[in-house]
């Protein structure tokens, strides 16, 4: 059996249909989209088609879509440049945000540009909406940055509810939608939201490309200066194949969404049920065991305390199973997950994030369950020393 990939929240496999859409721009149609000759014009029209595709899928206008090098740049742009443009003095976020949001806001707070408040979370990691309102009441003209779907524990927020609250208090609302883009339908006609983002590689598109949606009511300064690309909002020659690949990936994601949702929810449910039955003391972090009210692609499992928990991920890797302890993005650091830390998850428990994708199968899930059951069954059967 080939390697089982259950780390789809870190990155996903490029869809072959997407690669096929990219290849012509990696070969014969290689021009610089800003060039006015035929090579350039051909590529320009491919980029604008991609913009229109993405805008249409999200019920936005093409003029509201700006291409970036990925989700991190899009988050940095929304946060840094809205604070700069509107001279905001205050921001509200949560301790379980992705580092692209947290580190950016913390950097601005450290420089004394903003005061940063954290909204309270309950023991499941859910946002305390009453506390958010309380914060907003005392701090007018605030940036609120709350992620739509948490990459580690799968918690979802109600974008519509939060956006209404933000509107009521005249706050700017940014949501890191990296984990939900392409996995849920976003209807921006229906939402009072200022900024959302996408990273293509989280929905079977290429790495190195993303986008920022800027609601037409906003006009913010650029984050990367130089050149008139992206209507003066983002300097630099466009990642042409990346952009075309991203649009294709989002198109496929929307086309097949219902089938994929059903398929992946089925895998997640199977995993929750069998693990619960097979491994005594197993729990699930955050909302992730609530299949219909969490990111259906993420399951954060908390294994009972064991001396082997330290080696759990490596043992899974030896068994040809790829998953993660949390976010891949805390690269090179050995600090524990800040998300699980915020939830006060006991450090002796073994925490593993399994994240599913459209290419995963029931057989793979059964194999993973067998391997895990064996690891933990051994513990139960082993005689006491």
């Amino acid at each position, binding site marked *: 059996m080939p390697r089982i990939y259950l*780390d789809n929240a870190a990155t996903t496999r490029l869809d072959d249909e997407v690669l096929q859409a990219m290849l012509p721009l*990696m070969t014969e149609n290689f021009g610089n989209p800003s060039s006015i000759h035929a090579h350039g014009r051909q590529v320009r029209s491919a980029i604008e088609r991609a913009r229109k595709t993405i805008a249409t899928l999200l019920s936005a206008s093409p003029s509201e879509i700006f291409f970036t*090098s990925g989700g991190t740049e899009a988050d940095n742009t929304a946060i840094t440049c809205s604070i700069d443009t509107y001279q905001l003095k205050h921001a509200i976020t949560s301790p379980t945000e992705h*580092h692209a949001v947290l580190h950016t806001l913390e950097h601005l707070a450290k420089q004394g540009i903003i005061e940063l408040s954290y909204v309270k979370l309950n023991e499941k990691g859910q946002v305390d909406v009453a506390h958010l309102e309380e914060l907003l009441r005392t701090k007018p003209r605030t940036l609120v940055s709350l992620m739509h779907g948490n990459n580690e524990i799968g918690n979802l927020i109600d974008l519509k509810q939060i956006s209404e609250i933000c509107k009521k208090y005249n706050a700017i609302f940014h949501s890191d939608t990296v984990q939900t883009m392409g996995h849920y339908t976003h209807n921006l006609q229906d939402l009072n939201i200022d900024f959302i983002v996408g990273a293509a590689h989280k929905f079977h598109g290429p790495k190195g490309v993303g986008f920022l949606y800027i609601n037409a009511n906003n006009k913010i*300064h650029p984050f990367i200066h130089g050149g008139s690309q992206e209507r003066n909002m983002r*300097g630099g020659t466009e990642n042409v194949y990346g952009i075309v690949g991203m649009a294709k990936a989002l198109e496929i994601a929307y086309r097949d969404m219902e089938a994929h949702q059903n398929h992946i929810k089925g895998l997640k449910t199977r995993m929750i049920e069998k693990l619960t039955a097979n491994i005594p003391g197993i729990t699930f972090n955050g909302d992730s065991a609530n299949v219909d009210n969490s990111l259906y692609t993420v399951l954060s499992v908390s294994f009972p305390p064991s001396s082997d928990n330290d080696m759990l*991920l490596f043992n899974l890797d030896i068994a040809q*199973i790829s998953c993660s302890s949390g976010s891949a993005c805390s*690269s090179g650091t050995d600090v524990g997950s800040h998300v699980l830390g915020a939830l006060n998850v006991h450090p002796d428990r073994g925490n593993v994030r399994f994240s599913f994708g459209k290419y995963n199968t029931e057989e793979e899930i059964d194999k993973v369950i067998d391997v895990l059951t064996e690891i933990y069954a051994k513990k139960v059967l082993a005689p006491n020393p």
Partner: protein
Amino acid sequence: MKYPIYMDYNATTPLDKEVLEAMLPYLTDHFGNAASRFHAYGWKAAEAVDLARQQVAGLLGASEKEIVFTSGATESVNLAIKGVYEAFSRKGNHIITVATEHKAVLDTCQHLEKSGAEITYLPVDSEGNIDLTLLEASIRPTTILISVMAANNEIGVTYPLKTITEIAHRHQVLFHTDATQAVGKLLIDVIADEIDLLSMSAHKLYGPKGVGALYIRKKLNIVAQQDGGKHERGLRSGTLNVPGIVGLGKACEICQQRMTREAIRLGALRDSLENGILGAIPETKINGNITYRLPNTSNICFGRIDGEQLLMSLNEIAVSNGSACNSASTEPSYVLKALGLDDDSAYGSIRFSLGRMTKPEDIDFAIKHIIEVVNRMQKVRVF
């Protein structure tokens, strides 16, 4: 679709087939996130990034730890200039650059001016050269950075990096070079030239679009501009564009092997293009210094001719009348204006930039085509 003959390699280059071959495994089976530390998908991606880092460092004479991957030269330039400005704010707020720099440098400097930076934009002479005495005289106690491009994208003029770094370092000032047009075309050695920061991009050297690098000299600390998961040793967060980085590395390796021979070949083709045009069409002249310039670039002024019409009529060849990055603008080239050309002469100038696929027949064809078009336009003008 049938394309005209491509002579706009300074705008972008086709992806080398070998580079695409190197990238494909990372666009298919090896799709891991290079930051995934717990499984083979992640390790495979991280290994590929390490190799690419060696390949880029190899071309520049740098060591691997001095290379930071970015989304392209524009981001590299932004990181270098803003990163130095933030890190050295205690020392001063003055930056020296040149009026003919790429917009990536100029726009970044103009942005910093709004937050209190003082910028000196050095003028150039009629050949595009900078006055090194004036450069040194412009240094103040508050000067933190000198940023001069290695080669100009429009006229191809190259600048004496070693001499400039000596001046900068004599006054304890850092030196950044936007080497986007020079890397892969000319030998650049960051150690010999004592460069502190160097920006480059992949798509100008037959690598992919959407990826570039910043060289940051060892022990030089600058402030990151894009925060997140502390990728690239905290200097540039964001999931690494693994296939792009692999492509950049391979493109650098190929350039290192072929650069010297290719420079000679392109220099000869460029010279025959210029001889063919200048010999047949009166009033034409070359813009910029012809001794110190890129071997592949020629910027020719066609005299008092309707530049826009000329460019549109040259539909058998793909050329440009300035930087592609300013094509949204209908203004004449600010680079040529800085050389002292009037608006008409600037509009009437065309940049030819040759590259790996340019063949001698293409040059002969282009010369014939250009002569025909110019003759036709001049005839029309007579009537």
